[in-house]
């Protein structure tokens, strides 16, 4: 069952010498429960596409259908509800909320959604090795611990789609491998789909399929990647 379909998505940002076209009609699709890697050079538009799919910004053209909802026509309020209820995001810099302890960060989105699930949060914490650190503030955690809290936060609200932007980009190789394995396990456990933006061939190779973006367009479809 197709969870996500993006068609002809375009986006430009104002630059000093006029608008800079970041996406020029990118298209992709992703089935529920599947994982997809989005690769490409820096500035190819990977993160922008991720943000548009997650309802963090609005495209200039094209359509994005997520779980039966047309994201591009949603109001600010509608997009906020979409992010809260159906999308989990993991950022490269973790971007935990600095004023909340790890435990509160972990359960934040689920509580915001109004569906906290303490046993599930507790299981996530223990699976990610965070049980002893939940009382700490983000500044008191290591990079690896912070990233694990960010993953737990994204999964605690049981989203339909998890978006991860270079989830292991700030971790050393060993930590990156462990965190990635855990993330994939947990995503599969929840039945969510996962879309990962990455530079890493190793990370991309762990996904069910991968797409390469070049100058704002999907340049290459690797085996397993469904056509939109």
């Amino acid at each position, binding site marked *: 069952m197709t969870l996500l379909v993006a068609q002809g998505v375009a986006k430009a940002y104002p630059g000093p010498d006029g608008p800079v076209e970041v996406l020029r009609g990118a298209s992709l699709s992703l089935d529920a429960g599947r994982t997809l890697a989005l690769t490409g050079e820096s500035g190819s538009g990977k993160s922008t596409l991720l943000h548009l799919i997650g309802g963090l910004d609005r495209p200039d053209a094209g359509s994005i259908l997520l779980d039966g909802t047309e994201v591009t026509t949603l109001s600010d309020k509608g997009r906020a509800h979409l992010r*809260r209820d159906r999308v989990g995001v993991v950022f490269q810099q973790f*971007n935990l909320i600095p*004023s909340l302890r790890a435990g*509160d960060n972990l359960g934040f989105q689920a*509580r915001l959604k109004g569906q906290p699930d303490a046993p599930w949060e507790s299981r996530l914490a223990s699976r990610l090795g965070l049980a002893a650190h939940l009382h700490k*503030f983000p500044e008191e955690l290591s990079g690896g611990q912070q990233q694990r809290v960010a993953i737990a936060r994204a999964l605690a609200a049981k989203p339909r789609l998890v978006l991860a932007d270079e989830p292991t980009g700030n971790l050393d190789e060993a930590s990156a491998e462990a965190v990635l394995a855990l993330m994939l396990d947990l995503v599969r456990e929840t039945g969510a789909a996962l879309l990962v933006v990455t530079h890493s061939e190793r990370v991309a190779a762990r996904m069910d399929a991968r797409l390469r973006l070049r100058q704002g367009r999907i340049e290459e479809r690797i085996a397993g990647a469904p056509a939109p």
Partner: protein
Amino acid sequence: MRALLAHWRRHPLQLLTLVLGLALATALWSGVQAINGEARASYDAAAQAVGEGTLDALLPPEGRRVTTAEWVALRRAGWLASPIIEGRLDGTRVLGLDPLTAPQGLGPLAVAEDADLSAFLSPEGALAGRADVLAALPPTVAAARIEAPGAPPGTVVTDLRTAARLLGVSGYDRLVLLPDQPLRRPPLADVAPSLRLQTPGEAADPGALTASFRLNLTAFGLLSFAVGLFIVHGAVGLAFEQRRPAIRTLRALGVPLGTLMLWLVLELTVLAVLAGALGLLGGYLVAAALLPDVAGTLRGLYGADVAGTLAFRPLWALSGLAMALGGTALAAASALRRLATTPLLQAGTRRSGAAYAVRRACRQALAGAALLLLALLIGLAGGGLIGGFATLGALMIGGALLLPLLLDRVLSLGARLSRRALPRFAWADARAELPGLSLALMALLLAMAANVGVSTMVASFRATFTGFLDQRLAAELYVDGVSEADLAPLLPEGARILPIARAPRTLAGLPGQVLTLRDDPTYRENWRFLQSVPGAWDRLAAGEGTLVNEQLFRRARLSLGAPLEVAPGLTLPVLGVYGDYGNPLAEAILPEALFSRSFAQPPEGFGLRVAPAEAAALAARLQAAFPASQVIDQAGLKALSLSIFERTFAVTGALNVLTLAVAGFALLMSLLTLADTRLPQLAPVWALGTRRRTLGRLELIRATGLALLTALAALPLGLALAWVLLAVVNVEAFGWRIPLLLFPLDWLRLLALALLAALLAALWPALRLSRTPPAVLLKVFSDER
């Protein structure tokens, strides 16, 4: 230099904060100083014209004036004395001097430099005074008028003959003695035995009398300045912190630290001078707006004439600039020191986060607790007016330093008790933001505590004063300038006459007056003693003692039953103490018989007791028989007294509002400068499914919530301040103690005002946040890559 200055181009708001904060601080400080300077200059002008507070004088005995024979005898004996006639003509003070014998630099020729001596000695005479004073003289006054800008305010100076003619007196009020007297001259007792030598210290110097009032203004000015410095401190600290990477790069490229520090100091100096100049302009405007009320206050409360218009004084401008420079140095010292001592390779020292906030708040609270202890110790040890103000200072700063920890504890409790995501985030976020906002909140606390304290003092004073007026102004009508014999035929049956007579007299070494009261139920029923011996009224009527006002009782350290010399050769025990608010003089009361035996002073007016229903008809009869201005009804007199009172505190009220406005501005600037650093904290909350509008609303709630908590903390601090003002400062400054009364409605009004100020301060940053484009928020996630 260009690299350093580029910071201000990129952060114009910060530059505005710095300049405006310093300008506001300087404006309020220099405004108050301009007012004080004008008052001081007025007293100096008065002193120069009549030798007040500077020259010895010879005074006549009670009840009579110095005669020409006495003056001539003294001159012949070698005493260099010059006579003075002094009185009031329709509210204008008339000073008569002898231009030929007056000390050099004294008298009409001194105040009107280009005046012709012959004009003063002509049969018509001449009056020298400021233009506004001359214009206010009745047209019927027959004398030439000479404009003299250097004359004391509210005063015309003339020769003896013209003064005697205008005031309708003969003889002189006193003889002033020239500073350089011949060494060989006969003793005063041999030449004019009935005259008494008064040294300058004994005279009622208006400068000294009003010193406490001006000290209060200075304290307020200093408080406003301190609140302004909080803004500057915050702005400089943030600017230096943000420039740290640029400074590190410059140092790494080989620019010596000393050169960088020199440039930074130079830059701050230029900004301070610019802001100081703006502040001086503001201060001049503040002073010009407030001076008429202050002049009214000093005239009403102390009888001291002060010019109602402002002159520009270079010394004032220089001292204002010096304050701006000194304030900037004080506010920037810690930031400069941090910059100078941080090793080249070390990253910024500014920390954020809740854990750091708690540690910092604990350190501040320790210092605050120490200061509160110090305030208590100073308060217990006494130490006069200076001690009182030291207690106030320690109390205020100590309270302000305790605020961050107090807020941290409350916010932490709120976060623990919240179950839902956004409320819990809001509590925790407010807690984490405390270090950035604490300076502005401390400024708000100080402004609000000062408001609560001063308004409680004023309201307590007003309530006590109104009650006091009800006691003192019990008679239905008051008539001036008539005799009892003229009055009696006009009064209805059963009416009672209460004569009002007073004689100036030094009491226990203090400038004062002796009053007389007729033994009448009016006084027994209406006056309330602060302390008294049993049967005080009966014993007073029997001539067995005297009553004294609180000022005399406290300043002379009297006790009930203590002897007091109330008239030449008449020493009586103190029978009771009465409140006498607004009177700067020591005062004692004698029964009618004793008073008339000791002083030849005729009554200056009469209080009339009639049935209230008959008062209006009697007033009409009296106004038909005497000039209408001589008949005043009780309500009119009360209204007049209250209007003087209200004017007195109009200035305090205006300064209160200004201080609160500065605190509101501090909050606005803190919120605006913090707004940019807030995005990394708010963007994740937005990304996880919160609307920008909701985040904007949370910002508003956070600011008003913090203001509410600060206001609640300001209440006990303000009441403590009021207590110190009423129980220590007022007693030392004015000699009376007023009970502390509570006015919860005033607090609610102030609370609403503070919340409104916080809401207004937070409105713009909140609006900006709610309209931040998603692309800007997304930069938080991409820029850090």
